[in-house]
């Protein structure tokens, strides 16, 4: 599903964000990518979406080598990956329903399909009564659920959640983690990137630990064969 092979990322100012990182994540795995701030978690997300290019190494998503993807095909790559952004990236002038619809509209689905899929996602994330609310009317936890719903709209094989509990109180954070676990149980590969290791302890996920851009520990693949 996802391969990072000896990936190094050094920025123009000389900052080394990742150093010789290698791991392989199989289809249907639940992975917790942990480490303190500056460990390189967000850099991995950016590399995954081809926002930035690795200095060295190979990244493969669904057997596609990202280096060989032309700029005009980057959009197609991004449609395969659902991302829960650390800063939400919610459109504040659109309702919950319109934010979820956005991902489906980009893919060119017709209105009937969009409506049906939206209802499924609102049910899954427990937002059915918030459909017509604007983001400013929602709590942090509800916003995070909207972002998860939007990320799942296109039924991606891989969901990357970058600090999904970063701005939430412990109870709401647990709810979000539980939701991500449920999504994984339905067959989606889920990567949770977090610095709050206590929150993800005991959830039976594979753990990849990073520090200063280096791989500290990988508890090993638990991919469903």
């Amino acid at each position, binding site marked *: 599903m996802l391969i990072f092979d000896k990936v190094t990322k050094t920025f123009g100012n000389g900052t080394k964000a990742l150093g010789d990182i290698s791991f392989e994540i199989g289809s249907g795995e639940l992975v917790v990518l942990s480490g303190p701030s500056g460990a390189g978690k967000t850099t991995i997300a950016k590399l995954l979406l081809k926002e930035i290019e690795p200095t060295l190494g190979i990244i493969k998503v669904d057997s596609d080598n990202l280096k060989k993807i032309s700029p*005009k095909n980057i*959009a*197609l790559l991004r449609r395969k990956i659902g991302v829960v952004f650390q800063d939400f*990236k919610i*459109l504040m002038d659109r309702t919950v329903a319109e934010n979820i619809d956005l991902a489906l*509209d*980009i893919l060119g689905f017709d209105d009937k399909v969009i409506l049906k899929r939206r209802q499924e996602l609102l049910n899954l994330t427990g937002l059915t009564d918030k459909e017509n609310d604007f983001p400013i009317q929602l709590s942090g936890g509800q916003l995070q659920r909207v972002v998860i719903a939007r990320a799942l709209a*296109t039924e991606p094989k891989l969901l990357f959640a970058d600090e999904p509990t970063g701005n939430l109180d412990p109870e709401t954070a647990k709810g979000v983690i539980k939701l991500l676990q449920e999504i994984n149980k339905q067959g989606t590969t889920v990567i949770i990137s977090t610095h709050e290791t206590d929150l993800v302890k005991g959830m039976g996920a594979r753990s990849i630990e990073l520090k200063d851009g280096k791989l500290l520990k990988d508890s090993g693949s638990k991919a469903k064969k």
Partner: protein
Amino acid sequence: MKKLTLTLQHIRRAPYQSLAAIIMTTVTFLIVSIFTLAAIGTHTLLTYFESRPQVTAFFLDSTTSDQLNSLQSEIENSFSTDSIIYIGKEEALTIYQDQNADNPLLLEMVTADILPASLEVSAKSVTDLEGIAQIMEGAEYVEEVIYQKDIIDTIKVWVNGVRWGGIALSGLLLFASLTTIIIILGLKFTARKLEINTLSLLGASPWYIRGPFVIEGVIYSVLGAFLGWGLSYLTLLYLTPNLVEFLQGITILPVPYWVMLVVLAGELLLGLILGSFASLIATRRYGR
């Protein structure tokens, strides 16, 4: 349809910016229309004078028919003419009598003997007039040459002035409209940077992102073209009675409706090109 709805939403959300763009393009196309119509009008006026007998040579009484034929051949061989008409003394008298039918005193004093025979030459191109006149003046049996040089020269100056002035002013205003649309769309693009970034990360194609902005630019300029043309047409209709009186029998007005439709089609096409070009530049420049 969704893109158009989204575009109209963008326009509604920044009404004053949109209004500024529409006013600028309307003024531009109003000026383009006025100069286009003025260029068509002056060109028609020039054609009108070109189609009239423009050079007239009056002959001495001693002129022979061989000399007349020789002069006619020389003119025909040297220039492209529309018609060459010989008017003998008797015909000249008839014309004189027709022109002065209401003044018996003038008619009493004039006989065919005192009127000269003449040759009226109508050129196809106004530029040939001077050459024809020179040939006529060179003939020793020609007493006097008259041609509407001043009128033609004045009209030529007007035609050139309208043409080049129109091109210069229209070009300047089109450039101003182009930059106005670029600036306004650029501001809107920058204001929606977060949204554009999010769309891009969700896998939106470049056209999905830029499409509504391109449509917006096209709406500004096409609407401006239509309004500018409409204003110029209304002004022309309003001024037509006065212009008809001023032009005294020169039938260039009213302008046929099909000419106005051709002008409209041209301006809509120009508007389409202007809007697309401006919005593509704006989204390309600000999309980086």
